[in-house]
């Protein structure tokens, strides 16, 4: 089912951004990321980016 893959990617993207949201919370109010937080933020954004790319590909957008 092609759409099942798309829905999976949709949630993966939302969950990845949720992980980024948590880093915002633990670094508020300055949002000065430590090296470890930068690494986690990058991983989250990479996951989100991949999810969006897969969705675009899925629907030829």
């Amino acid at each position: 089912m092609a759409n099942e893959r798309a829905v999976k990617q949709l949630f993966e993207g939302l969950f990845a951004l949720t992980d980024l949201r948590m880093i915002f919370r633990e670094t508020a109010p300055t949002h000065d990321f430590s090296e470890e937080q930068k690494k986690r933020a990058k991983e989250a954004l990479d996951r989100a980016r991949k999810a969006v790319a897969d969705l675009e590909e899925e629907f030829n957008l």
Partner: protein
Amino acid sequence: MRDYVVDNIETRTREELFINMHPIQAAGRLTPEAMKALIAYGDGYSTCDWCRKPFRLDKIPRPPIDEFHAELAKFLGMDQARVVPGARRGFQAVASSIIEKGDSVVLSSLAHYTEFLAVEDANGVVKEIPLNEKNVITADATAQKIEDVKKESGKLPKLIMMDHIDYSFGNEHDVYGIAKIAKEYDIPFLYNGAYTIGVMPVDGRKIGADFLVGSGHKSFASPAPSGIVATKDEWAGKIFRTTQMVGDLTKRRFGIKEVEMLGCTLMGSNLIGMMASFPRIKERIKNWDEEVKKSNYFLGGFLKIEGNKVLSELPRKHTLTKVDTRGSFDKIARTHKRRGFFFSDELKDRGIVGEFPGATRIWKLNTYGLIWDQIRYLVNAFKEIAEKYGLDVSD
């Protein structure tokens, strides 16, 4: 820039943009897993996808709501647990099951108002135990109150309810000693863990409690409303009794449904949020000492400001604290054009929220869950504001 979910509902961003030291919000902040649960299980009856016979929430196997209930009871050192919409519904379930008209219920002079309402709802009468000079309830004071009630009414109280940590001072009350007294008088004992269950280890059996009540949204990193009521097998049949009602026309029965729970209790994302947070809860309670250490560190810095006082017991045993700034920031407020709001403005300018807006006299804060960098930032911000307005800050 102000974003909106829709129309006039603002996107809530205070946890992302600020350090939030709100007294009752701190330990209810969601884990990432609970956030994801909200995304996936926000639909109304989302927990009912796999509801099969016997058609009751705590029996649903997918997601494993049944296992969660069993694990929750074990985690709390009790035999059975149910989730409820807030601690108040836990008080209500217990009070409604064992209190009869005119029965006395002994509770703390710092009891939460919902304990009063639960007793009133059951047609009982509250009898408050006085505080000692440190604003703490002792076992001796509890025994004395029981004797007073017995003398006055000729009957023993039907229930003792006690907050381990009260909502006002965040002080610790002698729940172990009080449970022992309850046992001596053979009075059931309800432990109110609204500020403990989910942040520190709580073992009902070790405490000697007959009932444990906790709050999901206060201390279990869960959406509101959510809560827990747990008990021992000997009480489960009473508190979690099933319906005996039969329809006079249709002869319908709903046998498996529990009366006090009104059938199913906490559905959808609130329950799945609790379940999703549970693994982290089991881990985070092991760090309670560190949380208390941070609370004491912050207050150490806070007290370096001339005129600041801490009204809660010291050293702190909890992260919720009542402070008195009448001798410091309130002095500034008296002549400032913004009055007490000057203090809120200054905090907000430094990315801090959660104080009662405009309050510069007696107010509460909670440092739970802040990381060390945020704690140090908080201390510096308070000192900076004090210095700006000419208050002495000692080294």
